[in-house]
């Protein structure tokens, strides 16, 4: 059974690598991208199950990236992870969930698991931390 494939998009490279380690430790396959266009390339070419998306990035912010992803594959859950509080509602409306950086990995992992379970429905998957 293949591991759920998660795409992480963030321009903070160190933070991105650490997040990758956390997600991999939790049993997920992780693909990272350092900006919006690179993330969209991966999203359209690879079988991504869930996206963890940063909001503020040079060139193309998370809101625009999420909009494009929704257009491409509307069913893939998107978690918007940002250092900003009070993001514009037109952005938070697009995504499935909006979280603040610093809320801790436990919350992020539980949300990921929740969305993946919902998406899988009757499908069997190897997600989770077991």
């Amino acid at each position, binding site marked *: 059974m293949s591991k759920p494939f998660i795409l992480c998009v963030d*321009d*903070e490279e*160190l*933070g991105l690598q*650490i*997040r990758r*380690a*956390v997600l991999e*430790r939790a049993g997920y396959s992780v693909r990272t991208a350092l900006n919006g266009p690179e993330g969209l390339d991966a999203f359209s070419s690879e079988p991504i199950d869930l996206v963890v998306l940063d909001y*503020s*990035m*040079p*060139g193309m*912010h998370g809101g625009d990236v999420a909009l494009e992803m929704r257009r491409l594959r509307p069913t893939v859950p998107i978690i918007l*992870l940002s*250092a*900003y*509080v*009070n993001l514009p509602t037109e952005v938070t409306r697009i995504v499935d969930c909006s979280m*603040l*950086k*610093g809320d*801790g*990995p*436990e919350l992020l992992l539980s949300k990921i698991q929740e969305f993946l379970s919902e998406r899988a429905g009757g499908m069997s998957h190897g997600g989770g931390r077991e």
Partner: protein
Amino acid sequence: MKQREFRRILRQAVYVPILLLLLLAVFFIAQLRRFSNAVNDLHRADLITNSIIDLQKLILDQETGMRGYELTGDPAMLAPYTAGMQPIQQNFADLGSLLSGNSAQEQRLTTLSQRYQLWLSRARRIVANDKTLINNPEADEENKILMDNIRSDAHQMLVTQEKQREEQFLRETPYVTKADLLTTLLAAFIIGLIVAIFTRQRLRTVSRSYDATLAEVEQHTREAHESRQRFKTTLESIGDGVIACDMRGRVQFMNAIAASLTGWAAEDATGRPLTEVFHIIHEETREPAENPVKVVQRLKKVVGLANHTALVSRDGREYVIDDSAAPILGPDGKMTGIVLVFHDVTEQRRTEAALIAGEKLAVAGRLAASIAHEIHNPLDSVSNLLFLLKEEKDPARRDEYLTMAEQELARTMQISRTMLSLYRESKAPVTVDLKDLIEGVMLLLERRIAMQQIDMAYEFVEPCTVEGFPAEIRQVVTNVLVNAIEAAGMKGRIRIRLRSAPAEEFRGAGAMIEVADSGPGIQNGDAHRLFRPFFTTKGEKGTGLGLWVSMGIVQKHGGSIRLSNCGEAQYTGACASIYLPSKTLAGLDHPASPVA
């Protein structure tokens, strides 16, 4: 009527009668001379007549004396003869000069004189006892004939003289008494008439002109009164306080608003020195402010009051006022007084203070968001690393995670320290390194700049330091830079230039910060409005207070802020130029307003 014409008429009214009277005088003088000459001529004729009669009598007396002596031989008889000698000679000489010019009479006088001399020579011989002549009937007869001729000559002269006098009298006297009198009277009457008519006509012109002038003056007086009333009503009705003073600084006029603000009734204030009625002090130092009348007298132009001027009313109430004083100029351009116009800005100041506080809160909000963002990223990494550490068994990995966590915490500390140093407030002006200050601001904005992929250019030509309140200057620089970032948009360009600004005519040496962007630039007419409160071109995103507050801060430092369009190939948008003087004007009178 013009004054020149009036004077001309006056001159005519004086000189023409004088001229005519002079003519009359000349005429009278001529007539008098003729009278005088006639009298002189008659007098002369009388003198001649008397002289001839005298001569005749003297010669007869001489002859009688001589004949007495001849008959008696008594020498005493010769007394008339001897006594007549001298007067007779004198009479001949007088007559000679009196008859000069009268040839006929002169001729007779000469004949008379010759006959007398002949007679005298014979008489002398008788007196000398010439025997040929004494008691010689023949000689006596000759003497008698000679004397008869002399008498006849004298008589003839007398008759001629009488006749000539009569003719002269008839020629001169009747003419003088009738024709001349008539002519003189007529001339006097005509001249008098001319003078009267002329003077009357001239005086009537003057009178008409005087009436017209009087009517004009009345009209002007009425208009001046109406105009005065209109101006007075206007001054009374306007919302500003107005006080007019004379050149000595004494109140002459005061409107109702001025009366209400100063606490003085207009009638009480009139005539008093302005300083007594218009008592102004510095709002914060409480020092008396300079008398605006003195300032206007010195500068001879419109002057505004210094900032922070408070008017203390008669009952001790204080009003923050905005004021200007201007010279009142007379028609000749000379200053005749000073007018003060002022209004109460106490409420306006309170509102402004509230707006500034609001903008400071907005700045603080944006700042908090930036700080949160900068801190949340490393915090997220640290919390993830702690999560990994919990279950990591491999010591090498654990060390790696710990090192990374330390790095992230150090980054957080650095951000926090930078923020604190950036926004530490000072109570007095300090030396501010503008390059450091701009770099500090950039640290906060760099993420946003990176997001918009803005191409930044820095031209920090030389180290520039100014005196001032760093937090406030930072607020200005942040405001201008945020505006530039928003204007430049995605993939735009911004250039920050810092240079020293040498002293110019109206400003001292200082520093110039210029921020140019590649945005759409400033619309025509917006350049000034951008500095007004609540004017924004950002729609809902802006408060419209940023540049207004920035301008206040820069002006407090004695500097200036200007917005223009760059018009350069790469920087097509707006260019904000901030000039700050090396020595700030801001300082002792009021502490810096802290940025929250």
